[in-house]
Structures are given as structure tokens and as C-alpha cells.
């Protein structure tokens, strides 16, 4: 569903404020920039070696100026090129304010699985493990369920892990959850058109309701 992917990206865009250093993963996160106020000064980081990239140029794309997926981008004022060790040094040492990653499964404890489906896709891990380890704040985006309806927010990940206890927030087309060691998984927002009961029915992990949750979504 292309539409739910856009909804997730649109909601995730609200997490980004001016001044932030942000890394967006492939998949749904890459849709986020379309929903940002261009007047915000956000520094987007890409693993291949650029902090401060902007939109794909309308004309004359340059293959030597690209993002981690190999697609042409531009550079903003104050942007910098560097080699890949500096790029990941920045990630591991906590200079990325926010990483937004696509996900296959997230557990109630914040474990992330997003790099391999054994026997099917073995693309390799790329930079996901380091973003999960080092980003100050990590948000996972995913459609709430698999195509066959199986929940992706789970008690314990069944897919091989990317990293443990790293996800702080999960955004799906049905709702937004926070994860912290004290309270575990907490539903903080219900997306338009859904009720808390929908989330209960389609989420494997147990969760509590945030005090700030809008009452109208309760059943």
C-alpha cells in the first residue's frame, strides 16, 4: 500500500525540527523530506560521506554527488564531504540526533530486526547496526502488519536482530508507540481512522496507553 507508506512518512516528518542532524534509512524514511518545511535547516547525513544533502537536482544530476542508495542529490550551505570512517564515527559517537529506519520487526523491548529474512533476502546489513547503536534517537517506521496480516510489533523478534534495545519510537499507519526501559511499549497516538481496539487486534506485543492519548480513539 503506497498510501500507508506516505501516511507513515508524513507523520514521521513531524519528528524532525530545525537544527537536527538526521539520517534517513532506505524505504519509507526516504519519503520523509517531501513532508518537511524547506525553511527548516536540517542536516541530512548519508553513510557514503556527506552531511547536509538536499533534493535531487532538477537538471544535470551529478553521479559524484549521490546518497547511499546511489541516487543524485544536492548539497546545502554548510554541507561537508568526508570519508566513510568519519561518516560512521559520527554515527557511533552519537552525533546523529535522529535516525529513522525502515523495519521488519520491532519488539516491546525496542529490539530491531531490519536486515535479513533468512532464506529469502540476504542483502547484508549496511549501516543499520551502527545507526541502531549510535543515533541519539531511533525511530522505526513500518507498515503495521505483514501482507499476510501478521503483526510486526512483537513480544520477541523472530527475525535475526540488527541491535537490541535501540528503538525509541515506532510509527505505523495505525499508530505511534514509544518504548522505554521503565514503561515498555506505550501507545501514544492513534492514527486517523483507527481505534485502540484495532491496535490491540493487530499488535502482538502488550502495550499500555499513554495518558496523553486522545480519548476519542478509545473504544
Amino acid at each position, binding site marked *: 500500500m503506497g498510501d500507508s507508506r506516505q501516511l507513515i512518512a508524513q507523520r514521521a516528518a513531524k519528528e524532525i525540527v530545525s537544527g537536527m542532524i538526521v539520517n534517513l534509512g532506505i524505504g519509507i524514511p526516504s519519503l520523509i523530506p517531501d513532508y518537511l518545511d524547506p525553511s527548516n535547516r536540517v542536516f541530512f547525513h*548519508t*553513510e*557514503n*560521506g*556527506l552531511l547536509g544533502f538536499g533534493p*535531487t537536482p532538477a537538471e544535470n*544530476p*551529478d*553521479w*559524484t*554527488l*549521490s*546518497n*547511499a*542508495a*546511489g*541516487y*543524485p542529490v544536492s*548539497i546545502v550551505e554548510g554541507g561537508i*564531504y*568526508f*570519508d*566513510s*570512517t568519519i*561518516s*560512521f*564515527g559520527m*554515527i*557511533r559517537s552519537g552525533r546523529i540526533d535522529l535516525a529513522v529506519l525502515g523495519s521488519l520487526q520491532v519488539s516491546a523491548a525496542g529490539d530491531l530486526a531490519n536486515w*535479513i529474512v533468512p532464506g529469502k533476502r*540476504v*542483502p*547484508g*546489513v*549496511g*549501516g*543499520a*547496526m*551502527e545507526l541502531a*547503536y549510535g543515533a541519539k534517537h531511533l525511530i522505526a517506521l513500518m507498515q503495521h502488519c505483514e501482507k499476510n496480516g501478521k503483526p510486526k510489533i512483537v513480544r520477541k523478534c523472530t527475525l*535475526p*536482530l*540488527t*541491535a*537490541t534495545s535501540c528503538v525509541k519510537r515506532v510509527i505505523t499507519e495505525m499508530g505511534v508507540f514509544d518504548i522505554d526501559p521503565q514503561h515498555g511499549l506505550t501507545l501514544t497516538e492513534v492514527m486517523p481512522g483507527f481505534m485502540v481496539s484495532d491496535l490491540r487486534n493487530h499488535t502482538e506485543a502488550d502495550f499500555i496507553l499513554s495518558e496523553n492519548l486522545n480519548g476519542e480513539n478509545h473504544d
Partner: protein
Amino acid sequence: MTLLFGGFGGVGTPPTLVDCLIESGVKDVRLIGNDAGFPWIGIGKFVCLKRAVSLVASHIGSNPIAGQLMHDGELKVEFSPQGILNERIRSGGVGLNGFLTEIGKGTLLAENKPIVTIDGKEYLYEAPLTGDIGIVYAKKADPFGNLVFDKTARNNNPLIAMAAKTTIAEVEEIVEWGALDPEEIIVPGAYINYVVASRGINWKWIWEIRGN
């Protein structure tokens, strides 16, 4: 032969040197680099000829043929987290003997890696990587082999340049002594053994085929 190649998804992989590699007839090559390129881009062209026996990389997602070769047992692939892979290459290049990290602990990639305990805490040991030959791509070189790069085509090339016994740089332009600003040189010529002029990119990028 162990060959280190620069580039990230083919960006910054030296096209002319990859063709030389193919034309040379060399086989049974152990490759080390960020990824497997695309089947028609970068090191991917060589990988698809089944002349590499192994590859250390962070992903092979953009080259399904590499995935198939791995699946068929014709290419042994070792995955390393991307930044850890870069640091392993750097560790070899700067003459250190590997490092400790928490990245990857508790995951599949920790299997078979030595665990080192320091002050009661467990870390994974990551071994340095080096190679016989390194091939890199740069914008300009002077006669000493000092290199400057072009935007994101820099990526892992500076690390690759340091980690090989013999490093060959393919460059867009060879300039005179003194033509490079000593402040902006990224790789000192001390690391570069040979410089060759590039014949240019001879593949279509994925965004030229699919559109942006």
C-alpha cells in the same frame, strides 16, 4: 590475490581499472569492498564473471547475481557492518592490529568473532583487513600520487588506498608538481604506487535507467 576496491554502489569504483582486471584474466580473487556494485556497474561486472572466490562487504543488495552466486556456493560472502568494515580496512592501513566494538553484539554477525573482555565488559574483536592490490578512484593526482577526490565519490577510497601493499589510483586528471593545494589533499602520495588516467565511466547509472 586479495584485491581491495574503492567505491560505494559503484560511485568511486575505478571503471578503467575494473576493465583492466577483467581483461587481465585474473581469477580466484578475494575481494574486499563496501558492496558488490550492480551487475553492470563497478566491481559488479567482475563479480558476475565468477572470478572472485570471496567477498568481504557490508551488503550485496544491489547485485542480485552476487546473491545468487552466494546462494549457489560459488562466492563466499562475509558481511561486516558498514562502518566496522571501513574501520577494519583503516586498521590494516594504519598498521594497527584490529579493534574492539559493541556493534553487532547479540547478532548473527557476532558468530565466530573472538570475544575480548576488558574491565568485565565483553566486546567483539574485529580483525584488520589488508590486501595485495588496492584500486581507487580520484579526481586528480600529482606525480607523487597525492590525491584529491570529487564529492561523494570519495567515500571509502582513502581507506582502501592505505590498506593495500600496492595501490593503483585511477584519476580524471594528472596534474603537475605543485598544482594541488597541500591543505586539500586527502591521500598522501606515500600510499600510492601507480597512477593511471581514467577512460571515464562506461556504464549507465541506475537512475539513468529508472529515472529519479
